């Protein structure tokens, strides 16, 4: 089952690479650099899923108190931060030639940046807890509060900057159907990669727990 998923992920990744670099037409204004967008959207999509999982799993953990929800939230947050880092990096690489800057404090970017910091804080908090279930609850509490905070962060950044138009987005305006296909395959590929990594990471946590128990039993 896991093996199947790994093969599917590999195939999807290969397909998305091919589509992004060969199949999709070159964007007339930005040129080849626009191709990085497929990966940019793919990673940010996965990061979004990951943070929604953190939120839901944190609520479940506080409610049920079972270890698996805690591990799910923790592993998901790790992957979320990883993919969001990739999003920021690809975005930055794209912005340099197109906007002529690595970074600008526009609402979307600022919100993303704060989002990134929030979940790094989550990871600091969770990793300092170790196997302590009580402290794991703190991380869950933070996971919930951080998620609730996000819409407010977005609103506040818009208030601060004055409401600016959405500068880009393949969704805005018409795009070539080939581009749309490429984007969808990319999102699918990253989703499948995410699920695969998450399952593997959860296995790792389970093994660590088993090891811990064996150590205790062995004295």
């Amino acid at each position, binding site marked *: 089952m896991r093996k199947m998923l790994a093969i599917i992920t590999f195939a999807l990744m290969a397909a998305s690479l091919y589509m992004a670099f060969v199949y999709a037409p070159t964007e007339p204004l930005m040129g080849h650099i626009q191709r990085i967008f497929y990966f940019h959207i793919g990673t940010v999509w996965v990061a979004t899923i990951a943070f929604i999982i953190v939120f839901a799993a944190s609520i479940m953990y506080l409610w049920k108190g079972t270890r698996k929800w805690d591990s799910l939230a923790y592993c998901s947050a790790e992957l979320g931060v990883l993919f969001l880092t990739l999003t920021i990096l690809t975005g930055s690489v794209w912005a340099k030639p197109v906007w002529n800057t690595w970074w600008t404090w526009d609402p979307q970017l600022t919100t993303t940046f*704060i989002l990134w910091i929030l979940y790094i*804080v989550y990871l*600091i*908090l969770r990793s*300092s807890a170790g196997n302590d279930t*009580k402290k794991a609850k703190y991380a869950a*509490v933070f996971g919930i509060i951080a998620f609730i905070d996000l819409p*407010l962060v977005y*609103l*506040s950044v818009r208030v601060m900057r004055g409401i600016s138009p959405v500068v880009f987005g393949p969704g805005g305006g018409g795009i070539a159907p080939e581009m749309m296909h490429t984007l969808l395959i990319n999102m699918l590929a990253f989703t499948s990669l995410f699920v695969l990594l998450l399952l593997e990471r959860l296995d790792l946590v389970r093994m660590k727990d088993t090891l811990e128990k064996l150590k205790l039993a062995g004295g």
Partner: protein
Amino acid sequence: MSKLWAIVNKDIVTELRTKELLTSMLTFSLLVIVIFSFTFGLSAELMNLAAPAMLWIAFSFAGILGLSRSFALEKEGNAIMGLLVTPADRSLIYFAKLLSNTVFVFLVAVIMVPMFVLFFNLRFTPGLLQLVPVIFFGSLGFVSVGTLFSAMALNTRLRDVLLPILVFPIVIPLLVSAVKLSSSVFSGGSVLDETPSLKLLIAFDIIFIAACSVVFEYVIEES
């Protein structure tokens, strides 16, 4: 209700006996102002632009200072056990701590504003009174999140280091709207010119007081 007041009263009486918290918070915010005046030079134009931001940076640093003491005080001599065995709902402890912490932060802020105006040669106008509600809602929101996290940070290994990195990213929307409102007041306008910020500030307070009071019971347990 009387239980709530009992806890708030206890906090205020303790503070009045020692005056530790208020003096250290006030001194600290004064220091922040001194450092700012050094780093920014004293150009009046710059001051007008930077004043509201400085004000809120000073408040939030001082607020963190106060909050980190809030539960540390309970921990000393294990007074927290006394709180936990009171026949009251856990969220009641949260509301009581919220109230007493808000009183402290608000007091510091109210004392700071005139000093701030004085030191930076801004003008005293009746319009400045509009800062009072802004500071009130600002302190309330800051403390709503801070009280929850200070109870949390206390039991972790990182303790005081953790509190600011937990609180600051969460309160960004609050600080943004508070700074926006204050700068409108300082430049002679009214808070009503910035209704989106005002709404955001109040929404922040409501959302986080509700959310934090619900999750507080998972944070405060005997250790």
